[in-house]
């Protein structure tokens, strides 16, 4: 029996009507139910922003921490208890802007977590400033002559760092998004799913219609084990490609490399302090 991730009472969702987040929430709940993930062993971790509110609307455990800092917390949660399913979910500003350094090093560290990034190419919660993924020329109340910075390419960066799993989805294609999410959650290792979504309030350029015209799914023949091909495909911007770009099964998940689990597989909370071992260690200070 798949668990029910819905609340037994009405909840007040803080998103604008028509926001792409609703579809992502739907796809995510369906995926979790389909995978038979238990609410009791699932943890969402998020930062701050509209996307980061998603865990509030799923009946499960969550750690809603600081802006930009979801990945270190998610890494540690998985490391403290490897039996948990850990999903870090936040927006493009949180993950790629404020949390950019963590994004880089989490890919390198490769914890067995799923990283869902809502990418609407704009800052929603702070009302319409540029995000790292905003396209050049995008007009905002701050970037009044248009964005001048090179847009951040999370997929190319992740593939360059030999990330374990790299994919992109589009929120309004719920079915395909579910397929990608299911593969990402099942994947052992760090899995990035960048999800394009329209922001109906602050992005009048990258609308649903725009995404329809400027995205296409990867060709069925693409082999995700072919990293060079994946990198090349990740550089394409018209259309932006959707699907699973790259899978690398060579690097072990972070928590499996830890000395703490070498002799003892139990999660940290089930362990007791070995006072005798400390007493023995003390003796090593006599010489």
């Amino acid at each position, binding site marked *: 029996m798949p668990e029910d991730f819905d609340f037994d009472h009405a909840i007040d969702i803080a998103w604008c009507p028509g926001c792409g987040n609703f579809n992502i929430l739907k796809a995510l709940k369906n995926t979790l139910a389909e995978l038979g993930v238990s609410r009791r062993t699932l943890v969402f971790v998020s930062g701050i922003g509209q996307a980061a509110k998603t865990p*509030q609307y799923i009946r499960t455990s*969550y750690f809603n921490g600081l802006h930009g800092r979801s990945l270190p917390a998610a890494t*540690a949660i998985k490391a403290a208890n490897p039996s948990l399913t850990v999903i870090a979910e936040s927006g493009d500003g949180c993950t790629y802007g404020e949390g950019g350094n*963590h994004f880089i090093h989490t890919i390198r560290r490769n914890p067995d977590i799923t990283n869902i990034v809502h990418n609407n190419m704009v800052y929603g919660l702070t009302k319409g400033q540029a995000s790292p993924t905003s396209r050049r020329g995008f007009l905002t109340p701050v970037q009044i002559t248009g964005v001048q910075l090179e847009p951040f390419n999370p997929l190319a960066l992740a593939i360059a760092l030999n990330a374990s799993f790299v994919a992109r989805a589009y929120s309004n294609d719920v079915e395909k998004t579910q397929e990608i999410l299911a593969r990402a959650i099942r994947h052992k290792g760090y899995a990035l799913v960048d999800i394009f979504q329209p922001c109906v309030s602050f992005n009048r350029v990258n609308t649903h219609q725009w995404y329809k015209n400027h995205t296409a799914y990867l060709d069925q023949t693409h082999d995700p084990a072919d990293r060079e091909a994946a990198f090349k495909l990740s550089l394409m911007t018209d259309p932006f490609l959707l699907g699973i770009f790259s899978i690398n099964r060579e690097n072990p998940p972070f928590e499996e490399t*830890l000395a703490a689990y070498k002799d003892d597989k139990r999660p940290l909370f089930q362990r007791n*302090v070995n006072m005798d071992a400390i007493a023995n260690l003390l003796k090593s200070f006599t010489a």
Partner: protein
Amino acid sequence: MQTGQPTDISILLSGEAGQGLQTLERLMLGVFKRSGWYVHSYSEFMSRIRGGNNSTALRIASSPVDACRERIDICVPFSASALDRFVKRITPQTLILGDSEIIPGRYQEQGLAVVNVPLIQMAKDAGGAITLNMIVLGVLSGFLGVDLELVMTQMGLSLSGTDTERQARNIAAATKGHAAGVVLREQKPGALPALAHSETLSRALLVNGIDAVGLGGLAGGCNFVSSYPMSPSTGLLVFFARQAQAFGVVVEQAEDEISAVNMALGAWYAGGRALVTTSGGGFALMVEGLSLAGAIESPLVIHIGQRPGPATGLPTRTEQADLEHALYSGHGEFPRAILAPGTMQEGCTLARHAFELADTYQIPVIMLTDQGYLESNHLVQGLEIGAAPVVNHLIETDAGYRRYALTDDGVSPRGIPGYGAGIVCADSDEHDEGGYITEDMDVRRAMVEKRLRKLRGLANAAIPPTLVGKLPCTYLIVGWGSTFHVVKEALEALGNIDITFLHYAQIYPLHAQTAGMLLQARKRMIIEGNATGQFKRLIKMHTGLDFDAQFLKFDGMPFMLEEVIARLEDFVKESAHA
């Protein structure tokens, strides 16, 4: 100043980074302990890997010595510039034991006691400049009358990991040095005080502050350490890395301090017991995370090894100037506790206590040490780690579990995901009892009050200050953290004066008896390693009581015994005239 025959010998080794002073320090501590003497050492070094000038000061005594002193009885220069920084501390009574080839002629011309030992040539003969530290080990051991056999035993233990060729070279060098030392001892009878040997030191421990805090952390159940390297706190990260497998500690070098503190909070959330170790600058980066710990009511143990700021300051030196940084950092209002050990035992006890306090009250606990504390080596008879098992405050959740349930003492039963039928929701936004975001003003008020209610219990649990001497008294010295030993030894040297020392190992919440104790002294002086009297200010804020005098030091070096004695004498004199 003290008169009469000294009861300890103070040795200063001075040389360049890369000349093997640290290896020599470790070996000498072991050799002299083995021969039944109490030892203490402190190394100060420049923030560089090669060259410059570093020094190690060792004290050897027939009774416990735990503080640094200015007096140098034997000074061994390893390089031509090695004496330059110490001219103020070298007196005609100091034996400058070294190679006249590298000791500038002006020292001899000034009438200083230069004893020529051809260390450089001896090293060359023994296999090159790399053996210089082993030559010195031999010379000093021989000069102090230590049997060569003890030196060899210690070398066998300490250098067992190195290759056999190198071991043979080291042994040859130390043997050669020892022979020269024995000759020197015969040539200079009475040059050194005869120190009684103690038979009871074989089971004593040689530890520094890092060891003490690390061992206490293990006893407190620390099983997760995430940190970014920063002097002088890195030693603790290394300590746990070395124990990671044996004690099941997740140890990770984070990409920055922001990551480190957020990892630590994630670990606590999932049932780990996490520590971060850093210094003032790294802690500055962690401050938003500190505030998050306050909001989500997470336990957190933060070790700050203080060094002089502001900004990068003096990276490898010592100071006690981050008290207010630790106390006032973090946006918003939330409870915290701050501990500052002075002795090795306190480092161990407080590190363990930090975990228990953090877990009991679900608050951040900050341990404030400093470079002087962390990198001074002490000989202690033992370290009490406590026998009782660590209290684990986690509960198994039920289906209706609410992480922030309102309670009388402000502490909600703490559940973790994956243990019980409930779900555990932690939110940095203001939240309701279930952990869900809210902007309801009544809930906001209730949550603020709930969090702050913990302060009552915390204040009641404050560790009382340690009294050295009695109350009431004429003169009271108040200090905190690493000043303990130097003030205590200074008081012993002062003898008959009615002077008492009050040492604080818990800075915050300040113990409730503080005002009552301070009022039992006619005159009060504060001693602390900063320029503005931060602890003095804290005490004044909490008690309304001020101090009659202060001794503040902020040049990057620890307090020295002689300067503390002199300042205390002045304080007594000034007070008598007032």
